[in-house]
């Protein structure tokens, strides 16, 4: 068995993707650990992580570097952030999560990973964490609520560096269960454009997630 690099910090083996475990021997969400040539890898489950799904579905833009600063909105229990933490090991991942229930698990993960910063706040009110979040290279948003695009843009405006990249995971059913997902994706994309962001890439997350779309975008100067 061998690990082939896919992106910076992401490896592929046997149809699976993986990241190198920053925290040897410790699982975050029950994922498989694989040891190859003295290194330990965590298998990235695309059914548990939308970013994992997007990568397997051919995501081309991958902005995460070893020292990236990331603002992660909707960090949940830390599944995806932990993989980013493996990749951007010398960077910083601000993990915003509003549910105390989720945060209990997330804080545990942050406790074990120096580059993950827990923030128990509401992502729709970015000013509430303005005093702790720096300008970041990537704003990543996965918050299942109707105004998901709006809060994503508010956070980008406040925290994204001029040359930064935004990644938005849209769950159509959270926005409007009565409309067709196709229509919703179109509407959300036009919101981004109108607000001055350029959509670089769109990835449908089927079959891992139903009616989900990943949008990758940047500031449009």
């Amino acid at each position, binding site marked *: 068995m061998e690990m082939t690099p896919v992106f910076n910090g992401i490896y592929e083996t046997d149809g699976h993707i993986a990241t190198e475990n920053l925290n040897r021997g410790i699982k975050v969400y029950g994922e498989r650990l694989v040891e190859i040539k003295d290194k330990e890898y965590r298998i990235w489950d695309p059914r548990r992580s939308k970013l994992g799904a997007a990568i397997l579905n051919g995501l081309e833009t991958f902005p995460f570097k070893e020292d990236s600063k990331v603002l992660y909105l909707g960090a949940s229990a830390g599944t995806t952030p932990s993989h980013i933490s493996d990749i951007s090991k010398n960077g910083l991942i601000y993990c915003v999560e509003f549910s105390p229930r989720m945060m209990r698990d997330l804080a545990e993960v942050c406790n074990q990973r120096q*580059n*993950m910063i*827990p923030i*128990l706040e509401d992502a729709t009110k970015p000013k509430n964490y303005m*005093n*702790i979040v720096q*300008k970041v290279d990537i704003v990543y948003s996965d918050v299942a609520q109707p105004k998901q695009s709006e809060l994503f843009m508010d956070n980008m405006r406040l925290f994204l*560096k001029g040359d930064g990249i935004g990644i938005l995971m849209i769950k159509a059913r959270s926005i409007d269960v009565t409309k067709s997902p196709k229509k919703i994706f179109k509407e959300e994309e036009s919101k981004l454009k109108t607000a001055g962001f350029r959509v670089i890439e769109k990835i449908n997350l089927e079959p891992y997630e139903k009616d989900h779309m990943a949008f990758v975008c940047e500031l449009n100067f």
Partner: protein
Amino acid sequence: MKCYLTSCFVGFIILDEDFNLMDYELFPKRDLIKRQIEVSSGNLTREEEAILKRNVKNCDSIIIETNLNISNYNNLKGASKFKFETPSDGGKFLRSNMGLILKETGFIDSEDDLNQVLHSVSLELTNYKLKEASKARDMFLIQAINAIDEIDEATGKLIERIREWHVLNFPELDKIKNNEKYVKLIAEYGDRNTIIENELLDEIKISIQSTGTEMEGPDLEVLQGFAGSVKSLQDTKKSLTDYVDQKMSEIAPNLSNLIGSSLGAKLIAHIGGIEKLALLPSSTIQIMGAEKALFRHKKTGERPPKHGLIYQHPEIRSARWWLKGKIARALAAKISIAVRKDVYSGELDPVLKENFEKKLESIKKEHPFPPRPS
């Protein structure tokens, strides 16, 4: 000259037009968390007041970046020079160069230390907030379990009134003893003919002719509306019960598993929180809710109470008299363990309940007969 007042988790920073560090006022290191909370509660800190006071004379205008209500600044000296911009260019500069500036203030020795500081401050703050949230969670639970009791009492009385009223129209319906069914029939159908047409009331085996008075129009409407709002209270009680179940399975899975979520919630409500409950000796848990009897015991030497709230547990209530005290003691001991598990690990341990059941068996086996009078 204009300058920027901005802030980050370490305190307040003043930058000049060219974003040079002009002044700063840091929070005392031991109060870092406390100050974050003050700020996020919408309060002006003494550090912000101090730095403004110190700098207002040197600046023509101060651009303040803040998340507080602007009215907080109205009464400060030189308030006319304040302008408010959030985010401001000064703030943007700070957030782009946090490591550098914090090093300049001396808060950190090297830019590389920033991540580590951010990490530890955030974790500490998060833990504090989680603790507050779980206190709030206890409080919500306590409100809900108390509300259930009060709704029960209120609906009980109101349903009596509805029965006394509706009996004028349909005396035979009063045979339905289930309050929920009774209220639902009236709320949905109203008068006796409609009830009979819509429901096969096998329970009351009624002929179409009833001995009640005709009730129609406004006479019926008000009563039906009344029944409707009582029904809505009953529905609320149901959703509160579900809510308590849910909350208890989060907060206290072991306690719920052992004695049920309702009784568990009553214990938590009685003492005011699960953490307080975890600190009690099991002998106190055993008689919680029987404080008056305990007081009498201490004052007058009356027999001490054997059980308080936990008497509601079916194993105690239905036990033979000479076993009640023993079972109560055993149960209280298990409750004490369950609550501690809930507070300190939070994982459900089914063994606890099994142990109690075994203990129960052995108590019953060991004491098949009442003790002889001594």
